């Protein structure tokens, strides 16, 4: 497999310069998907007719002298929990497959299209977004483009693997406990989980209302920032979406990191991490003039609280389906949802209060540092079907433990760019570049600097 060199901003520039057409670009993407998706299993639906019609429409607008947008003709895919007009939103489930097609695109899909991008398909995921491996009992596992025997990571598995493999230069995913950052880590690409409330979740199938975030994947920071800028803006359909003006980031990528104080998260975020994960964080930390080890107190308890809220809220959301059609759930999802129905409400209430307390700890830490660094995952991508992994001296189940470093961060809604590092192995591993609330631009600025210095970056395939 070879990855085409063209990135989203390069494609858009060539289309705007009329060196190529949107139809040619989209057709080439559809051909790559047809050639490679049989082995990768990234897509649950390829929207060939719609994509070609959109591309031809864009070409006509360009020919008429209209402004085509900053993502002109860029093919993209979306995790199959975003509503796409005319398509049943599966959320990785068999149960929803019998439902009605969505009547309109989700606002984030509309916004990328308004910026000129062309939707080519819906992408595979863990059932109801409850998983970190991308192994789905109904639609199969998404395979890691760097090693087909390994998982792509989840739950936004197809979205990350498709970008890593060069099937499309952009995609959209969701992140409740790490579902953008984990697959970005395993697939060796960039992923942005914005601040909780930054991007509207309207028109996306929920997992845990109080923890769900949406965000983009890309193979470079310029593309990630372009997509993020196109996605920003309030939407009244999401009660948690903040009334904040868009804060464009693409123009800030060249600002560098001089004067920024980095904090390397210690204790919980280093315990059990593999040598590759620790080396990756060290490499990133060395780029800063000033980097110190810091502790985010009680991250273990915060992770436990996120774990409990996820299980209980997810169970509440799916209770009717669980009672009516338990046999049609992925067994791994079903058993955890049932467990969630048996968790006392007192634990969930306490976990919600702990969330507010823990957010205060992070705010205090950000008075001493400007950016935090931590591994995105404790290990590189496990094998498909692998049941346990080693964390320090302990052998632990794979599924709940891949997200141990991402869960405390999304629990308090901090913005994160996951950046890909190649630390000694042929497999990538991600580092979380974590900023204070509403400072996505700072995290992107750091990621762009690391990319320019050659410390992080996506790779092609032999």
């Amino acid at each position, binding site marked *: 497999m070879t990855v085409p060199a063209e990135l989203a901003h390069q494609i858009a520039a060539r289309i705007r310069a009329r060196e190529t057409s949107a139809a040619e670009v989209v057709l080439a993407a559809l051909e790559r998907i047809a050639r490679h998706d049989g082995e990768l299993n990234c897509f649950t639906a390829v929207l060939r007719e719609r994509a070609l019609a959109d591309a031809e429409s864009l070409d006509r607008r360009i020919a008429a002298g209209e402004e085509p947008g900053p993502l002109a003709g860029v093919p993209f895919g979306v995790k199959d929990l975003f509503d796409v007009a005319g398509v049943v939103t599966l959320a990785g489930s068999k149960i929803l497959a019998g439902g009605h097609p969505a009547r309109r695109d989700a606002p984030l899909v509309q916004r990328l299209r308004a910026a000129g991008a062309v939707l080519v398909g819906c992408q595979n995921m863990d059932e109801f977004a409850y998983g970190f491996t991308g192994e789905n009992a109904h639609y199969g596992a998404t395979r890691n483009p760097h090693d087909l025997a390994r998982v792509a990571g989840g739950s936004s598995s197809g979205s990350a693997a498709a970008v890593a493999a060069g099937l499309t230069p952009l995609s959209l995913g969701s992140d409740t406990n790490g579902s953008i950052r984990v697959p970005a880590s395993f697939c060796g690409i960039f992923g942005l989980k914005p601040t909780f409330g930054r991007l509207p979740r309207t028109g996306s199938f929920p997992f845990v209302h109080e923890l769900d975030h949406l965000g983009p994947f890309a193979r470079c920071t310029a593309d990630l920032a372009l997509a993020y800028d196109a996605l920003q803006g309030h939407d009244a359909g999401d009660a948690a979406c903040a009334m904040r003006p868009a804060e464009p980031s693409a123009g800030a990528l060249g600002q560098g990191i001089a004067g920024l104080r980095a904090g390397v998260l210690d204790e919980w975020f280093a315990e059990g991490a593999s040598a590759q994960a620790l080396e990756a964080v060290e490499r990133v930390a060395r780029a800063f003039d000033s980097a110190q080890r810091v502790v985010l107190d009680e991250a273990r308890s915060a992770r436990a609280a996120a774990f*409990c809220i996820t299980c209980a809220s997810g169970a509440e959301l799916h209770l009717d389906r669980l009672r009516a059609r338990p046999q049609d759930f992925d067994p791994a999802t079903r*058993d955890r949802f049932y467990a969630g129905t*048996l968790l006392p409400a007192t634990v969930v209430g306490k976990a919600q209060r*702990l*969330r507010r307390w823990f957010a205060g700890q992070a705010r205090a830490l950000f008075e001493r540092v400007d950016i935090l660094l931590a591994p995105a995952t404790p290990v590189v991508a496990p094998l498909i079907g692998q049941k346990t992994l080693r964390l320090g001296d302990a052998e*632990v189940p794979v599924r709940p433990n891949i997200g141990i470093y991402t869960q405390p961060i999304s629990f308090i809604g901090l913005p994160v760019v996951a950046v890909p590092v190649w630390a000694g192995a042929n497999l990538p591993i991600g580092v979380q570049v974590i900023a204070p609330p509403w400072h996505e631009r700072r995290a992107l600025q750091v990621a762009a600097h690391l990319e320019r210095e050659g410390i992080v970056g996506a790779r092609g395939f032999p």
Partner: protein
Amino acid sequence: MNPDAPAPALTPAEAEAVPPAYHAGVAVQLAALREQARLVEAFPLPDELEPAAVFVP
């Protein structure tokens, strides 16, 4: 994971809420969930600290 540890089991009250075919799998997941819940329950918080209705980071 201790391979010699007894397999987790649901209490009779819990078992009533779950179809028998899924008891074994749910018991394993519930044991893992309880481990996390114990950490939450043991965490000291001031009485006046309240959760946000819509969370603001």
